[in-house]
């Protein structure tokens, strides 16, 4: 028999969009691609021009050789990692208990996780300085103590991303049944959390962490006014003092963001999340 029995919804699903709609789709795509790629191309081109008359990676060499670059970069990486760790430590139990035992708290928690969008970074740092730079709550006395404060603030700023990521993850695995199943088999809650919930949340946790990393790594505003020598303020200085290095820096920074987002895309299969708040 020549007749196939493959299900026809699959086969007839796509009614091809009309030719004119495809033309407009392509036009929009190409124009916007141009808008988004030209600045990157121009920056990359500049980053290759540091040496007279030849294209090369001189600007990158100079950037990496700059004695301030590596300390700023590593400080930012450590800050980001610490903020992610803190954020996970706080958000995972919160999301878990809000899902399982304290559903009444959900609206409150969701409201609070919206705050980083409501309070602009520059306003937040303004308030932080007014609150913590004099007794009785002196927190910014030394560089190191300010740094701890910065990390805590970053962790708080990551709450919206982290909470949504973990919450979606918990919804996807039906955490209630898993927990009840584990309980009925005699597990206590530590075992449940570490042996049952965490392994099933790997993707959600990782994507929340990477998103936080991408946002925190080059953060400028808060670090600037708290006088921290991290990557953001370093990059801002660089644009004022150097000609070619900023282009190399922009490309490096773009690549880091791209990598974080690429990994999220890979592990979540395209369910990456919207962000906001610059």
């Amino acid at each position, binding site marked *: 028999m*020549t*007749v196939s*029995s*493959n*299900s*026809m919804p699959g*086969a007839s699903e796509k*009614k091809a969009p009309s030719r004119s709609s495809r033309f407009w789709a392509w036009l929009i795509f190409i124009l916007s691609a141009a808008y988004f790629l030209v600045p990157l191309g121009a920056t990359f081109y500049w980053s290759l021009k540091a040496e007279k008359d030849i294209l090369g990676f001189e600007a990158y060499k100079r950037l990496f050789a700059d004695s301030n670059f590596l300390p700023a970069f590593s400080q930012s990486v450590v800050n980001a990692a610490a903020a992610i760790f803190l954020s996970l430590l706080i958000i995972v139990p919160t999301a878990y208990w809000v899902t399982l035992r304290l559903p009444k708290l959900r609206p409150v928690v969701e409201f609070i996780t919206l705050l980083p969008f409501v309070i602009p970074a520059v306003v937040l740092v303004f308030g932080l300085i007014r609150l913590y730079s004099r007794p009785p709550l002196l927190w910014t006395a030394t560089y190191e103590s300010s740094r701890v404060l910065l990390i805590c603030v970053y962790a708080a700023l990551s709450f919206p991303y982290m909470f949504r990521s973990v919450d979606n993850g918990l919804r996807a695995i039906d955490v209630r049944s898993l927990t009840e199943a584990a309980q009925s088999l005699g597990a206590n809650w530590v075992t449940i959390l570490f042996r049952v919930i965490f392994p099933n949340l790997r993707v959600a946790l990782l994507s929340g962490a990477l998103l936080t990393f991408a946002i925190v790594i080059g953060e400028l505003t808060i670090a600037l006014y708290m006088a921290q020598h991290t990557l953001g303020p370093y990059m801002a200085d660089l644009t004022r003092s150097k000609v070619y290095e900023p282009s190399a820096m922009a490309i490096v920074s773009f690549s880091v963001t791209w990598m974080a987002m690429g990994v999220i895309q890979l592990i979540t299969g395209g369910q990456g999340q919207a962000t906001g708040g610059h």
Partner: protein
Amino acid sequence: MAYLTLSGISKQFSDSYVVKDFSLEIEKGEFVSFLGPSGCGKTTTLRMVAGFESPTTGNITLDGVDITDSPPNKRNVGMIFQSYALFPNMTVAQNVAFGLRVRRETASNIKQRVEEMISLIHLEEHAHKFPYQLSGGQQRRVSLARALAIQPHVLLLDEPLSALDAKIRVSLRSEIRAIQRKLGITAIFVTHDQEEALSISDRIVVMNAGLIEQVGTPFEVYNFPQTQFVANFVGSLNNAAAEVLDPARGLLNLDGIQLITASDIQSKKKGDKVRISVRPERFSFADVQRKDNVLDCTIENITFLGSVVRIQVKIGNTKFNMDTFNNPFLELPKIGDREQVSCSKEAVLVLDE
């Protein structure tokens, strides 16, 4: 000439056929069901009538006009979607009015027609609600009213009763049928549920793997299935392997027991292997005078199904189900009892594979 004619319709996706050589004539006011398992091409055929798919070959004419290539919005064919496809931003009344609005009917015409339609489906109190405020059954009725408001030449229903409670399904299907009769509208109804098709249709088109297996009234399709597929798909059926003893007299051999069939097996030879099919309700406990086949059996199992009692019997080495209507005075045999069952020769079907 028939009102709606599909002649030689085929639909090909890449190199496989989803529908092949589909020809059918539908009279004005007729209610026709396309019945078959999922993937048999029934929905694709319906979508070709609506104009959402165009046939690879073949023609569709409606009231004498060839509509094969006319766009869906010019056909005036009403469709009820499986997902109801109500517009979520519009109230019930606005949904029903939509087709008239895009036709630029006058406001008073629209108002009158919408009221008429909404009273037809008995949703007067809900006219200003949004679809998400309605139950599944109510949403189906709105989509019916919306499709009927444009006074379509043909009404197409794509599994309109799926995912509803059993009770609502039954009441809604009689409501659909009543409205269809009242308006005298031609309708095509796609379903995979044989009971639904049998209860609602003037004629049933049984489809399998893109091909028409049989076209006939519910009575014909159920009682005189022409193929093994139709017999199995419509109603329940006992199947068994048998051997031809005497083609001329219709004698068969089932595990050493002689059976007589009314099916035409003249073309077979003695010793040929055939499959026989018997519907469970065609068996009864022996009524020796009248029945052509009287068979010894052992009671294997008894299942109480409410209105029907299903008794599994073993005839030779083959197990058969027989259905008996329930009544409070029914005397049932016990498991392991030896009994005799009988059936007429018309009940024993020998069908093409």
